[in-house]
């Protein structure tokens, strides 16, 4: 996982392909890695992310399970107790909900409960977020539930390279990782060589995706490309925006985030998940706790509305887009003649 590849070897690959490759390489390196879930075997998953794994490693290593998410995660817990390293696929975010009791009451607690005697080296892959025209229950952003659960690591890639690197790191972790895959980036492409993967960052490190001096956009997963686009568009308004991709929501990289905000003095958190009770509140609160006297304006949030996910034909109004981000940046109290009254 530490080879660096010359740029010449790189060619376009999708995030889905990088994820497949990460599982493939992990399975080849370590016979204890087992992939399981609904339709992950013969079909290769409804998003084809496990394509070819059953063929290469056999159905015992990449297993089509019965249709029961609590059963999938619950049996994976037992497999982990016996020394395996299960990689579980939940078909869609909303279909992980039946497995919540197993996740919260067992997966997250097992190491702590047994003082380290039983560990849960589980990776739970959850395709999340909207923007794919899915009918209801196919576009939820469920990260807030995972973040509120002590004992879970929560990781999400936003780039093709990270898809590979973070998934390898997640599978290698001795603690459970909820690995959130942004559905609408599955077919995003980047020049990347699946044959000689690049260096893998450890979990818990954010990445500065764009340097800027006016304000920091803090985001992750599906909203990263939107923020990058917004940062480009902001140039014509005279704002030079920095963009931080969190990559790992837990552990949270306070250092990188705060260093950026201390430098720019302004921050907007952007995510798709509902605003109220969503990750943005935690992120804004911890930045404020740590960087209060560096802030020229309150940390603002651009998030999905506080509504059940919108039907496909209306989802573009729900999702945080470039204009909504720019409108929010504009509210970061740039005028010197600002008078009291708060952000509203």
């Amino acid at each position, binding site marked *: 996982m530490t080879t660096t590849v010359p740029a010449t070897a790189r060619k376009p690959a999708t995030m889905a392909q990088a994820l497949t490759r990460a599982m493939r390489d992990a399975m080849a390196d370590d016979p204890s890695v087992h992939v399981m879930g*609904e*339709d992950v*075997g*013969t*079909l*290769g998953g*409804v*998003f084809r992310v496990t394509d070819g794994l059953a063929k290469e490693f056999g159905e015992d290593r990449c297993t*089509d*399970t*019965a*249709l*029961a*998410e*609590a*059963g999938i995660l619950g049996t994976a817990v037992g497999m982990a107790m016996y020394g395996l390293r299960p990689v579980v696929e939940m078909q869609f975010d*909303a*279909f992980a*909900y*039946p497995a919540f009791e197993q996740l919260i009451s067992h997966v997250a607690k097992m190491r702590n409960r047994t003082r380290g005697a039983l560990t849960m080296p589980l990776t739970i892959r959850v395709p999340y977020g909207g*923007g*794919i*025209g*899915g*009918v*209801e*229950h*196919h576009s939820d952003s469920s990260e807030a539930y995972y973040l509120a659960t002590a004992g879970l690591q929560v990781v999400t890639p936003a780039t093709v390279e990270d898809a590979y690197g973070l998934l390898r790191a997640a599978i290698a972790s001795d603690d459970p990782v909820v690995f959130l895959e942004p*559905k*609408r980036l*599955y*077919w995003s492409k980047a020049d990347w060589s699946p044959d000689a993967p690049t260096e893998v960052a450890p979990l818990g490190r954010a990445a500065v995706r764009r340097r800027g001096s006016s304000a920091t956009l803090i985001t992750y997963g*599906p909203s990263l490309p*939107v923020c990058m*686009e*917004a940062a480009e568009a902001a140039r014509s308004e005279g704002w030079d925006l920095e963009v931080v991709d969190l990559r790992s929501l837990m552990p949270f990289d306070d250092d990188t985030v705060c260093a950026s905000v201390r430098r720019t003095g302004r921050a907007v958190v952007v995510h798709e998940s509902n*605003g*109220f009770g969503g990750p943005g509140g935690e992120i804004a609160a911890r930045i404020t706790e740590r960087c209060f006297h560096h802030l020229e304006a309150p940390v603002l949030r651009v998030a999905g*509305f*506080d*509504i*059940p996910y*919108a*039907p*496909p*034909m*209306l*989802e*573009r*109004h*729900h*999702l*945080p*887009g*470039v*204009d*909504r981000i720019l*409108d929010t940046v504009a509210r970061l109290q740039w005028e010197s003649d600002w008078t009291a009254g708060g952000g*509203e």
Partner: protein
Amino acid sequence: MTVLEQPGSSRNTSSLAGPPPSWQPRTDPAPLLPDPEPYRLLGTDAAARLDSGLLTRLYTQLVRGRRYNAQATALTRQGRLAVYPSSTGQEACEIAAALALEERDWLFPSYRDTLAAVARGLDPVQALTLLRGDWHSGYDPHEHRIAPLCTPLATQLPHAVGLAHAARLKGDEVVALAMVGDGGTSEGDFHEALNFAAVWQAPVVFLVQNNGFAISVPLAKQTAAPSLAHKAVGYGMPGRLVDGNDAPAMYEVLGEAVQRARRGGGPTLVEAVTYRVEAHTNADDATRYRSAAEVEAWRAHDPIALLERELAARELLTDAFVDDIKEGAEQLAADLRERMNADPALDPMDLFTHVFAEQTSQLRAQASQLRAELDAEAAGHTEDAAGAGGVAEEARP
């Protein structure tokens, strides 16, 4: 002398032989067990007793249903539906489910069962609203007593039980018929729903359409049971196994179960053995997981063909009759096509209207924000406020 002299134990050892005291089998399992073979009428001697009126009624519905399925799938190719899970090949189940119920009863369809809803009287455009994507559910469930099409598998089953139980508590003789797939029987909610129904003796009929697959996963990876109908005995309700492509058999078995429920006899589990002739949805590639030969064998056991054979034997399958039905089906399809070709009227502000009965101050603020954005958009200031409107076609599984 003995250990039982310790406190907490009893010295009375008189009734020591014999079974445990409060043990008593409360139900005889024998009548709960399904027949070893799927119940059939068509192609058997029993077919003779079937009423021709019923057969032509079923036939008409099957043909219309098949045409509806074909039209809906065509609409996905034209981009008018985001996705369509067809029930082609399963029409006998869908139609029988709809016809077995009275008006006052409730139907709880799964995401694949738009046809049952349409056969029960729901406007096909309303039935397809979810799959077109303009709203989550396109109809008022109270109008035809059809619960919203349910996507999270098996979660509609406890709803059916609760509704039936509530009706019974109110003294209404209402039956709920809940539909689920073979895959859905593996979910915990299936188990909990059947158990609640049996304990409450709720007037519910559970119809499992065993169409051989849960997306790509064949039944053998889903269960090791003798049949899905055999699950009934574990709840203390009768299990019935039926040829799901035999429309009159389906109609009879469901009808009996509905009547039994209405009479206070409690729930029934019906397994219909059928086949999903087409792919899981238009977006699925079924060749990845099953052979053309298997599909062909099932096409030969087609519900419409089975019924046609009986109608032909009765010399009812005249050209005039068939043409008439085909014409009706074509009309249904043409009407559906035309209405689905019109863009639905959409108001983005609806996103906030029904979250709560009373809008919160937070939602009011968000609604104003969207209103301002829409006004700006209308004023031509921005073209794509979301920057995320593009939907990757491949991203629809």
